[in-house]
């Protein structure tokens, strides 16, 4: 096993430092404003910071674990996300085989293809093979009520939760000249930019937010929050170019694309939650909701970031 790149160790140490500062601030705020645990905003902030510790440590361990660590970690994220997504769909007993197939065959096969680095198949396995196979299996059960809606829901769930998520570990297989052995930093770059952008949009929104972007979908998203968060996350992305194969300008452009996709990903997933009448996808991450609540913006940006990087930087 090869050692993780030094830059990765530096990045993780930096993140833990940021979290330590956040924890100290959170503690001070709590002492001052919410000594009896009654200030909801402060309590939620501290819940979130605590959950961030767990997420950063788990993610760090996965990235240090190299190819196997990253693949298994994101396979589990896909599983948890798919479990949350399917819970909110209107599937019936007639979809039982199709769903079993989605969880126990399609998901593992997709990650196996990522693992063995078979780009030609993992890029089309779900959009082509699963797309055609799942409705066949559902049709064989003979339940025609809302058939199109049901198979569309399952396919959409697979595309979002498995196909899109799997493009994060797929970054490891890109062959970028002069960057060999350091691909794991592309994942760190993507995830850091997306998550920092989410946090900064939240912060800017709280500070300056006036004009709502989509009051029906997500009342907390504001133009000021989005612009402030997107621009500062783009700047941070440029500042992280040392850990990527990109120049500062390229890193800024890619970070901007990631941030915009992430923002709209959050919006789309909010629309689904709204439609289903829930506030969060699940309850596994205290203060954040479910896996999908934390992953929604990563899912939308991962495939785009993957293909842009593949098209312009990797050699076939």
């Amino acid at each position, binding site marked *: 096993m090869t050692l993780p790149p030094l830059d990765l160790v530096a990045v993780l140490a930096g993140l833990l430092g940021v979290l330590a500062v956040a924890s100290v601030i959170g503690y001070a705020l709590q002492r001052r404003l919410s000594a009896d645990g009654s200030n909801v905003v402060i309590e939620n902030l501290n819940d979130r910071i605590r959950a961030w510790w767990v997420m950063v440590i788990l993610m760090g361990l996965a990235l240090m674990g190299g190819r196997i660590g990253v693949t298994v970690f994101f396979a589990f994220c896909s*599983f*948890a996300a*798919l*479990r*949350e997504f*399917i*819970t909110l769909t209107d*599937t019936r*007993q007639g979809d*039982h085989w199709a*769903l*079993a197939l989605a*969880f*126990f065959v399609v998901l593992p096969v997709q990650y196996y293809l990522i693992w063995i680095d078979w780009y030609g198949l993992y890029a089309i396995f779900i959009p082509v093979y699963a797309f055609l196979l799942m409705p066949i299996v559902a049709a064989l059960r003979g339940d025609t009520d809302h058939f199109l809606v049901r198979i569309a829901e399952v396919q959409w769930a697979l595309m979002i939760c498995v196909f899109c998520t799997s493009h994060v570990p797929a970054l490891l297989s890109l062959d970028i000249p002069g960057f060999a052995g350091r691909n794991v930093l592309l994942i760190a770059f993507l995830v850091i930019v997306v998550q920092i952008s989410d946090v900064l949009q939240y912060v800017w929104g709280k500070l300056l937010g006036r004009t709502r972007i989509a009051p029906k979908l997500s009342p907390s998203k504001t133009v000021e929050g989005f612009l402030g968060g997107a621009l500062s996350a783009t700047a941070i992305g440029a500042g992280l170019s040392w850990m990527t194969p990109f120049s500062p300008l390229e890193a800024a452009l890619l970070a901007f694309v990631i941030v915009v996709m992430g923002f709209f990903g959050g919006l789309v997933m909010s629309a689904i939650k709204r439609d289903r*009448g*829930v*506030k*969060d996808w*699940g*309850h*596994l991450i205290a203060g954040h909701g479910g896996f999908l609540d934390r992953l929604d913006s990563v899912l939308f940006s991962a495939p785009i970031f993957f293909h842009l990087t593949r098209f312009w930087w990797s050699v076939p």
Partner: protein
Amino acid sequence: MADVSAGPTETPPPARPRQQRFLARVVGTGVLLFAHFITAVRGKWDGVAPDDEQRIYFANHASHGDFVLVWAVLPPRMRRKTRPVAGADYWLTSALRRFIGRDVFNAVLIERDRVARTSDPIGLMAQALDEGASLILFPEGTRNVTDAPLLPFKSGLYHLARMRRHVSLVPTWIDNLNRVMPKGEFVPIPLICTVTFGAALHMGEGESKQAFLDRAEAALLSLSVKADTP
């Protein structure tokens, strides 16, 4: 080397030898881990706190896994004292089921067939309560495979509540497990489940059987609505 044929006849070994108990604990832990993996189950304590008092949790019944989920969300100390009530006609029919029902879950196994039974179900449940156990009870009597949210309750809950008035009756709604494994399927689908505990009931003075059962049904049903809003 001991000579088996010699000497006085040995007394039979204790009913549950150490190895079997150990195996039961391992299997119990495995079942709980599997339940968490598939359902990410979470307990919502809406009307009662997870306090260590003697209770009868009465729940809706749609799947064989129902009591596992209730068990899974109880704090470990309470879990050890809480026994599911289950049908002997199902759990004693094979060696594996007997092992799981008796050894792993320490179920109170009752005979549901009124005509053929040789033991009194209410008596067995009361005895378990007198020994200090809490119970998980499915007052519908059988798995609900209809579209109705609940089947009419059998009278067992009423008789037991009347005989042991001090025990709190906690309505317990298990949400979504029927979709995880509908009747007739054998592969569970991973879906998020919740177990919601409502406010405890006690039987009122002179409350009639039907009034009590109606009240219990309504208390349980009211939780099913809440379960949809996380």
